[in-house]
């Protein structure tokens, strides 16, 4: 009888199957995250739910499930719906479950407005009137909504101006004052009695303060401008609310928007999510600082981990006498790769923060104590901790790469009179570069997803300043930073408004995956170019 299977075929099939399962799982995960996250930003229609008891709510449908009776038994035909009703200041919660049996009628008024606000979440209601420069425009006016939109746009421009002054001019002033203050403190701490110097510093501070007064007056004027115009809204239940326009981020009427309009609005919102700063204890607004922090941390880590990893591997493979000692070191390196990340975190806290950071503070930043500068978590310490965590990966990958460089190439180089160092530097390393970069790719992938060690070495829920800004030395390594992974944890497990934060969790997870992919693809492209470049020379 002929054999149906070639020997070993079954194993090929099993491997193929395993691969398929993995791919399906990855695809499923991405699909889940993408639908839950991306879908949440779509401006869904807003319905007016009039209940049998006379109350009514304007809400967006969020879910539907079977009613559960008093005895815990699921009903078979009765449903209830979950609505996002907004108006947290009015109702206390943004979400509400309503039994369908209690609903008298549902309609979708075209003039129902959703206001996204700087505080208290969204407002759902109807436009009652606009108070613009002392003039009252009634909500029934056909132009009223476009007037409102223009006013909101103006208010956003003022907000942008305020932000510019706060971050730019006032940021500079603060930075200057703090520096002079520390110099003064340094004088008194050293016991130096130098009235001339002291007077100089004080004068500088006064100058800064005078500048601050000017900016402050400017700010006050802008804030007054923000609060000059007001909008009066009425909720579905008829409660009126007066809001200054400065409190509104955007206004839209989802029921009055076509598909194209909605799509445009969606893109705008998505961009806002990526590029804006978070608001309301991170439950609203964007996540730009977290994206920035994640990328910068990975870059700093890569800069640190590459030389160390490569040098260590070079020594182990090229220079060290292969013997028991080297074998022990190699085993240790491999084991290091398996140490739980939190252990590295604890080491980072003890060694970097309290150890090195404490020393740096007591030597260079004495004036600032007891406020720690480097003696507390910061982006440098977090990056270094992650560098320690990923260095075994780089060492192992580099060693593999070095081992695969053919012996005859080295011998050729040596035969032509090159020294050992020249051979290593000019011949071996270039040929091993693709493998080294593979190590880096693995390191990046591991580091980007790591959260536990970061939580104790410098990631915070809200860091007001990015680690890079316009003040010398531009890169502020001591600053704390925000991180996408921690952001997910924070939104998911610590946010007070868990329901409102849920879509943000999925969006953030989606972006984190996207960033890992982008970082990896960049590294892969570089590696492939190098491979092509050295493929010819290696043969």
């Amino acid at each position, binding site marked *: 009888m002929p054999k149906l299977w070639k020997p070993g075929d079954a194993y090929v099939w099993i491997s193929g199957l395993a691969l398929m399962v993995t791919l399906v799982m990855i695809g499923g995960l991405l699909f889940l995250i993408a639908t839950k996250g991306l879908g949440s930003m779509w401006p869904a229609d807003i319905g007016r739910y009039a209940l049998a008891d006379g109350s009514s709510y304007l809400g967006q449908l969020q879910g539907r499930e079977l009613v*559960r*009776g*008093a*005895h*815990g*038994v699921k009903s078979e035909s009765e449903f209830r719906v*979950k609505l996002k009703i907004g108006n947290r*200041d*009015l*109702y*206390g*919660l*943004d*979400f*509400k*479950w309503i039994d369908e049996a209690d609903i008298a009628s549902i309609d979708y008024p075209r003039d129902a407005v959703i206001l996204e606000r700087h*505080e*208290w979440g969204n407002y759902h209601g109807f436009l009652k009137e606009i108070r613009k420069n002392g003039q009252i425009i009634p909500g029934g006016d056909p132009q009223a909504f476009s007037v409102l939109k223009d006013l909101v746009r103006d208010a956003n421009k003022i907000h942008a101006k305020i932000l510019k*002054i*706060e971050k730019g001019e*006032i*940021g500079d*002033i*603060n930075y200057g*004052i*703090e520096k002079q203050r520390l110099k003064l403190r340094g004088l008194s701490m050293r016991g130096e009695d130098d009235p001339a110097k002291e007077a100089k510093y004080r004068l500088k501070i006064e100058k800064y*303060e005078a500048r*601050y007064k000017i900016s402050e007056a400017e*700010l006050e004027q802008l804030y007054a401008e923000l609060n000059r115009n007001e909008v009066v809204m009425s909720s579905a239940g008829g409660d009126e609310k007066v809001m200054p326009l400065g409190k509104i981020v955007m206004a839209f009427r989802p029921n009055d928007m076509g598909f194209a309009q909605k799509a445009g609005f969606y893109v705008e919102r998505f961009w806002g999510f990526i590029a804006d700063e978070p*608001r*309301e*204890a*991170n439950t609203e607004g964007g996540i730009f600082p977290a994206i920035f922090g994640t990328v910068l941390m990975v870059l700093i880590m890569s800069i640190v981990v590459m030389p160390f990893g490569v040098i260590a591997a070079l020594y182990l493979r090229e220079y060290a006498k292969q013997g028991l000692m080297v074998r022990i070191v190699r085993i240790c390196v491999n084991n290091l790769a398996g140490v739980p990340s939190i252990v590295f975190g604890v080491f980072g806290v003890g060694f970097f923060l*309290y150890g090195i950071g404490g020393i740096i503070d007591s030597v260079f930043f004495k004036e600032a*104590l*007891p*406020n*720690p500068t480097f*003696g*507390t*978590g910061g982006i440098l310490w977090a990056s270094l901790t992650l560098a320690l965590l990923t260095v075994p990966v780089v060492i192992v990958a580099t060693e593999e790469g070095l081992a695969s460089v053919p012996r005859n190439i080295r011998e050729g180089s040596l035969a032509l009179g090159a020294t050992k160092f020249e051979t290593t530097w000019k011949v071996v390393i270039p040929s091993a570069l693709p493998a080294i970069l593979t190590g880096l790719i693995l390191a990046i992938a591991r580091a980007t997803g790591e959260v536990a060690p970061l*939580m*104790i070495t410098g990631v*915070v*829920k*809200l*860091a*007001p*300043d990015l680690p890079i800004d316009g003040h010398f030395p531009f890169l502020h390594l001591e600053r*704390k930073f925000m991180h996408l992974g921690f952001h997910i*944890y924070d939104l*998911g*497990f*610590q*946010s*007070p*408004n*868990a*329901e409102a*934060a849920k879509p943000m969790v999925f969006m953030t997870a989606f972006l984190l995956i996207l960033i890992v992919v982008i970082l990896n693809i960049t590294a892969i492209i570089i590696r492939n170019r190098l491979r092509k470049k050295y493929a010819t020379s290696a043969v």
Partner: protein
Amino acid sequence: MKYLSVKSSFALFAIVCVLAFGQVAGAQTVKVDPGIPSYTKVTGVSGNINSVGSDTMNNLMTFWCEGFAKFYPNVKCQIEGKGSSTAPPALIEATSQFGPMSRMMKSKEVDAFEKVTGYKPTAIPTSIDALAVYVNKDNPIRCLSIKQVDAIFSKNRKCGGGGDIGTWGAAGLAGDWNGKPISVYGRNSASGTYGYFKKKALCKGDYKDTVKEQPGSSAVVQGITEDLQGIGYSGIGYKTSGVKAIELAKTVEKGCFGPSLDNVVGKKYPLGRYLFLYINKKPNEALDPLRLEFLKYVLSKQGQEIVIKDGYLPLPAAKVSELRALVGAS
């Protein structure tokens, strides 16, 4: 509303609750005491605010900082909230200026602080939290006594309740609920909420081994949202539409009270607590302007409005003026 049937020992008690007290008051009914002064801006405030401590107060601190920075655009805040137990070491190491804690410092922690600085830390109550016991929104239970709560959460029942309560039937529910096991959620041990609940609701007894420890207050609420048989505790600020905060009774005779401001201030609700800010203040020495102004802001109308926004309860005016005197803000 849903029909509720109860076991005999529970019957009288439940009827009292239903008759005497309505639903738990929503957050929107709470207003800041008009006697609390409004915050006014001063000059010369700048620098960094570092805060390390309670997870319960994490958002509160963030809100306060956002609000404070509106007055002083030159102030920056860095806030970490991994649990109240992280506050004292950070204050001692001087890695933070504020230590938000959802419980009082233990004497051990105070001693450790005193050993380094030579004086005791200063505690400033900033707001009131009612620790709520949450159940799934579909759970018909209305009220539990502390003894019952103890019997649900604790394995050694130091509050003196009878037997262990492991099913919703034993907690007084009938019908389908009778045989359903109770699934218990709690916080991790670094949390001040964990410690407070252990002290007040468990009479310092031990938690059952089956308690599912969660890394955050919000995680407890989310767990119960998904779990029909779930029960757990968290600050009232974490309430969502998926859960119900039940009423509690100190003893069966005293009746049930929901976690509203009046009940907490009137000491009728058994699990009310202050949320503290700990600071390192040298005795007889004024605070630096940054910390002083921040505390003044917290103890102002605006600061207390933020407390309401985050779902907690504001301080009464008398307490506020007392505290303002304590920190040196006349």
